[in-house]
């Protein structure tokens, strides 16, 4: 079973050299820590920076330089700043090649719900609806089940949707699943996780090939 860093590490394997990538808040943010040596990717933050770098050294924080999580950051060589319309032009125009974000629910047809729980305070969708409606590679990083132990990989999302038929892959603490043709396709198991456990914890239609390799991290 993977911890949060393990999930991030596995997702980092999806990155290709030269990719422009948008990372959501939470586990997705950790992906930046596991970019392979051999490749180079640029991180976009939708509030208006391309070429986002690590957090600043203490005392070097700049209130005018933050990411979409409102955290102080730095800019790497080759970075650029731009306005929000240009930023979402990059996203909507599919120039940002991969988006990694968290989710409350994902359906077997690739729907995603991650912004609203009826009856609870709604904070807003931020840029999530634009992101999931646009990028070609939408990867969801989340736990396989919720706190009550119920599957988050469903036939249909029960929560209000963020986007329809857009999620390409889901990486959880249990494995890697591709979404296509109206089903989750199990690609890899996390170390020490059985296919049986994944089957048990996946409510949506699940296609399991004869051989499911354990992932290499």
């Amino acid at each position, binding site marked *: 079973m993977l911890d949060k860093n393990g999930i991030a590490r596995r997702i980092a394997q999806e990155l290709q050299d030269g990719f422009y990538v948008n990372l959501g808040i939470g586990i997705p943010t950790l992906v*930046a*820590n596991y970019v392979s040596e051999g490749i180079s990717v640029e991180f976009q*933050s*939708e*509030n*208006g*920076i391309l070429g986002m*770098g*690590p*957090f*600043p*050294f*203490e*005392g*070097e*924080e*700049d*209130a*005018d*330089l*933050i*990411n*979409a*999580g*409102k*955290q*102080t*950051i730095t*800019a790497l060589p080759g970075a650029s*700043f*731009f*306005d*929000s*319309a240009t*930023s*979402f032009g990059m*996203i*909507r125009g599919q120039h940002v090649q991969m988006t990694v974000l968290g989710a409350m629910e994902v359906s077997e047809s690739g*729907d995603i719900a991650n912004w609203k729980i009826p009856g609870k*305070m*709604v*904070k*807003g*969708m*931020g*840029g*999530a*609806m*634009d992101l999931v*409606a*646009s990028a070609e590679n939408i990867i969801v990083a989340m736990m396989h089940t919720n706190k009550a132990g119920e599957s988050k990989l469903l036939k249909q999302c029960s929560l*209000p*949707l*963020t*986007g*329809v*038929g857009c999620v390409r892959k889901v990486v959880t603490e249990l494995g890697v699943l591709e979404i296509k043709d109206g089903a989750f396709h199990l690609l890899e198991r996390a170390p020490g996780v059985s296919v049986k456990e994944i089957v048990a914890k996946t409510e949506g239609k699940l296609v399991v090939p004869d051989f499911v390799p354990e992932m290499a991290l």
Partner: protein
Amino acid sequence: MIQKTVSDAEEAIRGLRDGMTAMFGGFGLCGIPENAIAAIRALGIKNLVCISNNAGVDGFGLGLLLETRQIRKMISSYVGENDEFERQMLSGELEVELVPQGTLAERCRAAGAGIPAFYTPAGYGTEVAEGKEVRVFGGKPHILEHAFEADFAFVKAWKGDEAGNLIYKGTARNFNPMMAMAGKITVAEVEELVPAGALDPNEIHTPGIFVQRIFLGAHFEKRIEQRTVRSKTAQF
């Protein structure tokens, strides 16, 4: 040239009245028009419809106008962590319209650029699309979104000149340029105000034509919402 420079925020907000719609630049607390917000609070203008990506925090940014119940409706993409906001929203005192962030930005730009409506894929199939026209382009469904209208736009820039030209710094640019385009009256507050001709015309982010009033901000707190740092020895 007609005088765009005004002495302070109080003079800059002249004409803003109860019930008007106003845009506020900024993302979180980054690049927000602190001086205009303070002046609006001091003047006690009520029932404002505010278009802003976020709603500030308790005690800062638009949170200051929420405290004093000056905002009737917020149009935002993310209203974040704000207890007073939550209280007013749940009690029904405050109306809230949530808009996807890219759509919010594009609706501001559209308003400024004379584009009354456009199609976007964002929000299709979600409650954001309810009641909106859906049309398929290139095999993909899109929804029709309309330009905003705003009586005032309050923006914050790093440098500005007396012709109204603005230059922003870092990610404090965010929504400011599109909102500057969109306001019937656009008020810019700047950290440095220079004579026309002192800025390189090639480096202007917002051409002066979009700005009706400009002033040197009296004080910028530039509060940081999430101070995140690394130690000198740690790795990325």
